[in-house]
């Protein structure tokens, strides 16, 4: 077996550019995922609010029950039939964010529900509204519990982002395929790409552990 990594070195600047796009896509998707996931997770706390609970549950069921690739294609190839043409980058970010939000919402819901009910009661008994109690008492405590599962979700998001290469976004995976199409060195290039993903996912994991440690030390709020 002879390995030839020279296409990797020659294409290195393109791979780095691709990695940057991967980081851009995942971090924008992460932002969307967290905000949307927070809303949907909170929407799924109280089954008595039928409409909100029903919509949020339907969302989670649909997203978790269908392949991400199908969802991405629905956005990229499906929406143009309604004359909605979004740039590939927007579709990719949107698709990834929407997908990840379903999982984040479950993390959010689980963390909130794991906070002792006595906390809400204490907050309500001094006169806080349920919203105030949620914002000042429950969410800060729940946030700490969200971080470890959240790290896993972030890592999954980075890995899943490879799919957006199929929407013609020039991410890491896409650049790799271009290099392979001229050099035919699949093994070497994919190995290099795997290695770059590995670095990205581990950096993300490291960053989250750092945040967790800081929040613990600082007692979260202020």
């Amino acid at each position, binding site marked *: 077996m002879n390995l030839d990594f020279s296409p990797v070195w020659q294409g290195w600047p393109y791979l780095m550019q691709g990695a940057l796009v991967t980081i851009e896509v995942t971090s924008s998707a992460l932002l969307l995922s967290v905000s949307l996931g927070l809303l949907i997770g909170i929407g799924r706390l109280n089954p008595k609010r039928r409409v909100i609970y029903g919509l949020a549950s339907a969302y989670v069921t649909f997203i978790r029950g269908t392949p991400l690739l199908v969802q991405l294609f629905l956005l990229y190839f499906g929406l143009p039939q309604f004359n909605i043409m979004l740039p590939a980058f927007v579709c990719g970010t949107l698709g990834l964010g929407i997908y990840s939000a379903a999982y984040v919402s479950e993390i959010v819901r689980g963390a909130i529900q794991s906070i002792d009910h006595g906390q809400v*009661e204490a907050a309500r*008994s001094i006169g*806080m509204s349920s919203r105030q109690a949620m914002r*000042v008492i429950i969410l800060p405590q729940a946030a*700490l519990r969200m971080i470890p599962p959240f790290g896993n979700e972030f890592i999954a998001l980075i890995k899943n982002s490879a799919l957006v290469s199929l929407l013609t976004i020039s991410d890491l995976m896409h650049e790799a395929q271009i290099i392979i199409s001229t050099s035919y060195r699949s093994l070497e290039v994919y190995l290099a790409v795997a290695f770059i993903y590995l670095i990205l996912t581990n950096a993300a994991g490291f960053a989250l552990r750092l945040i967790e440690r800081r929040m613990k030390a600082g*007692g979260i709020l202020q």
Partner: protein
Amino acid sequence: MTSAMTSTTAPIIDIRNLSKSFGETEVLRDVSLSVRPSEVVVIIGPSGSGKSTLLRCCNALEVPQKGAITVCETELVRDGVVLPEKQLNALRTQVGMVFQSFNLFPHLSVLHNVTVGPRMLSGQSRDEAEARAMELLEKVGLANKATAHPAQLSGGQKQRVAIARALAMKPRVMLFDEPTSALDPELVGEVLGVMKTLAEEGMTMLIVTHEMSFARDVADRVLVMDGEIIEEGPPSEIFLSPQHARTQNFLKSVLTRS
């Protein structure tokens, strides 16, 4: 002037013909009770007799299906209908509650536990709220713990912070649900001491407790509950010559236990 007159005569808590069920089980049956200003009322009774439920009805943490409760001249609930959210929250600021399990906010410092309510709800500035909180912590003997976090406190200290947190809202009445039951025996005294001071200062209090000697010393009235109020009277009567067999049995079981 008229308001001053009515507020001295009108009860702070007035419970009329209250009934409450959880599903099929009726926990409270036709309970009526008034607590007048500066009165200290102690509720005793066996486990599962509805003491906590009654207390929790008084700030609408539980909603009774039948009967009415008036708190601080405002009707809190009538036949299962609770005061609208805004007024309810306002009314709750006047009713302090202390829980068996303390329920301090673990992510906030002791000082912040006490100031979070006043700053958010009474529109106090940070300085104002903190000055008042320090007075209260002084009063419960914990001024030196202001910057600590709840996890660093003993059970007795936690409960005293919880009392300070409730007092910070300047409540007109305090509800205590077995405030010392979760404490090691040697820590019970420090919490009861604070409660006794409050009673002497004229705070209106409704207290569920198994501390019979505290009840004897501090209570104006003792209520014996078992789903309904079996018996009520001054502590001397209840403890020395209980009328009902159920009261006698309950007292016997409590006294032999301790």
